[in-house]
């Protein structure tokens, strides 16, 4: 556990340099520049959001074609009602709104599921202070077979840490 994100960043750099795998980091806010060091890949949520948006666009256009052109064309002030292309300008606002609707909600739901943050889920941060002002760097011995526990402990003590706790996991 560290009391400053810069100390944690330096420590993570040092540990990775020694070939130790960092399992996870728990922090009260995003630490910029940490992801490439501990090997967290870029998220693909933006791509997912784009796909949801495309889905929304298609669905909106298909729906409006069915309601307004195919199923029950209405003559409103003599405006074209028998062709989707000619009526398209009037359909732009709803198409846009519905695409945004799908993109935003689709992405938000994906985000919740991927993060495993849903109503009623248990929290699994190791220490309650990590949502306030402390930063935890987690190393699992099971992921670092080339280093024994004493070795890991010594490497951690070299860094500018505040607390160290060793847990035996079943």
């Amino acid at each position, binding site marked *: 556990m560290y009391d400053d994100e810069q100390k944690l960043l330096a420590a993570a750099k040092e540990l990775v340099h020694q070939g130790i795998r960092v399992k996870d980091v728990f922090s*009260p806010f995003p630490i910029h520049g940490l992801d490439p060091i501990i090997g967290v890949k870029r998220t693909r949520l933006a791509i997912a959001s784009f796909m949801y948006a495309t889905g929304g666009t298609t669905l909106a256009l298909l729906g409006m074609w069915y309601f307004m052109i195919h199923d029950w064309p209405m003559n409103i002030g003599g405006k074209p009602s028998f062709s989707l292309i000619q009526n398209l300008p009037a359909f732009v606002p709803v198409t846009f709104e519905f695409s*945004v609707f799908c993109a935003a909600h689709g992405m938000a739901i994906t985000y919740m599921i991927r993060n495993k943050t849903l109503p009623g889920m248990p929290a699994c941060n190791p220490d309650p202070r990590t949502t306030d002002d402390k930063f935890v760097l987690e190393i699992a011995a099971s992921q670092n077979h080339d280093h024994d526990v004493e070795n890991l402990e010594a490497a951690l003590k070299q860094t500018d840490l505040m607390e160290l706790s060793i847990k035996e996991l079943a």
Partner: protein
Amino acid sequence: MHKEAAIREPLILGHKTYNDITNDVVGPIEGPAPMGWKILISITGLISLYGIGCIMYLIGTGIGVWGLNKTVGWAWDITNFVWWVGIGHAGTLISAVLLLFRQKWRMAINRSAEAMTIFAVIMAAMFPGIHMGRIWVGYWVFPLPNQFGSLWVNFNSPLLWDVFAISTYFSVSLVFWYIGLIPDFATIRDRMIKPLPKKIYSILSFGWSGRAKNWTRFEEVSLVLAGIATPLVFSVHSIVSMDFATSVVPGWHTTIFPPYFVSGAVFSGFAMVLTLMLIMRKTMKLEAYVHVKHVEYMNIVIIVTGSIVGVAYLTELFMSWYSGVEYESYAFINRFSGPYAWSYWIMMTCNVISPQLMWFKKLRRSLTFTFVLTIFVNIGMWFERYVIIVTSIHRDYNPSSWGEFHATFIDIGVFVGTIGIFLTLFLLFARFFPVLALNELKTILKSSGESYKSDSEH
């Protein structure tokens, strides 16, 4: 780490640590409710009850209890609708547009501005609902198969676009707001000692743990949501303005309506944010986070949007003459000299003249002056919608059907009631929710905090 110029004013004053930020924001939630809050919420609660009573009476009796008549079929209801939607524009603008522009000062105000947005949009959405008269068939606005041979809703109509725009705007703002709240609820959850609040906040926080990967996703989601919310903000009020602009009523049938309405919305939204923030920073002791510099930035936005609105008023006036259309020019002559001239001149004074005072640095950095001015802007923007709606339709093409509108006590009761409900919701928010975006403020503490800035100079 990101560095910031030393001459830039710090955004967080005093010698704060991460823990201080948590204490300052979460502290008021943990303690007992202050007396002032109890008094305020009792008052706003009573006003809300009165408003709800008026709405029940309205629904039970019919919209004839409003002062509407055959000529003036839209008056306070739609004025209030547009006013509330406009107020609802600042929150998402602050959190989405300013996020894209990487404006760090937004972090102190975005949480409460977004809460305000959501509550204002709820108030706005209520008006078209009760204006339908038969609210129990309100679901007819959605394209649902029905027993009339499947007669669908009209997708050519701006009124239907509005249904989609407002519901999208409301739900997307809500999601954006909540995603930002999750990590802060987790902070409260981990501090709470009493079992019941702890349980509630732990449900609200969805089990947030703050893993590195979670934060990466969090930042990506915030950025992408900001990216898609930005055109959404502009589209919503554009569509609201098309409710008027696509009609053939002189005074409504104007192509400058969309940009003019959007800047008017931002103008009134910022005014309302300032009104509420100036009270909140004082009562909740947030002076270190929301201080003169933030107020000045917001006042600059008010000058810009207020000037756009002023130019739009003058353009409208000029075009009504330049177009050579008799009906169009009469509509505008009638506005500034007809029976509703008083409302036109209130609008002009509050929206065009008063924001220009903000060019003086002393005035825009004065909190008292800003507070008074924002009240003026709120009033002025309500009258803008009143002028556009009522003065345009009370005298139309056919002089034999000219008429006037007089508000009834139900008109007033419903409007005042929505202000009461809005303030009640906002007070509840201020009491139980983290009013500042904790996780975002902590990221800027080292680049924009006063103590870190002064340390780095030596």
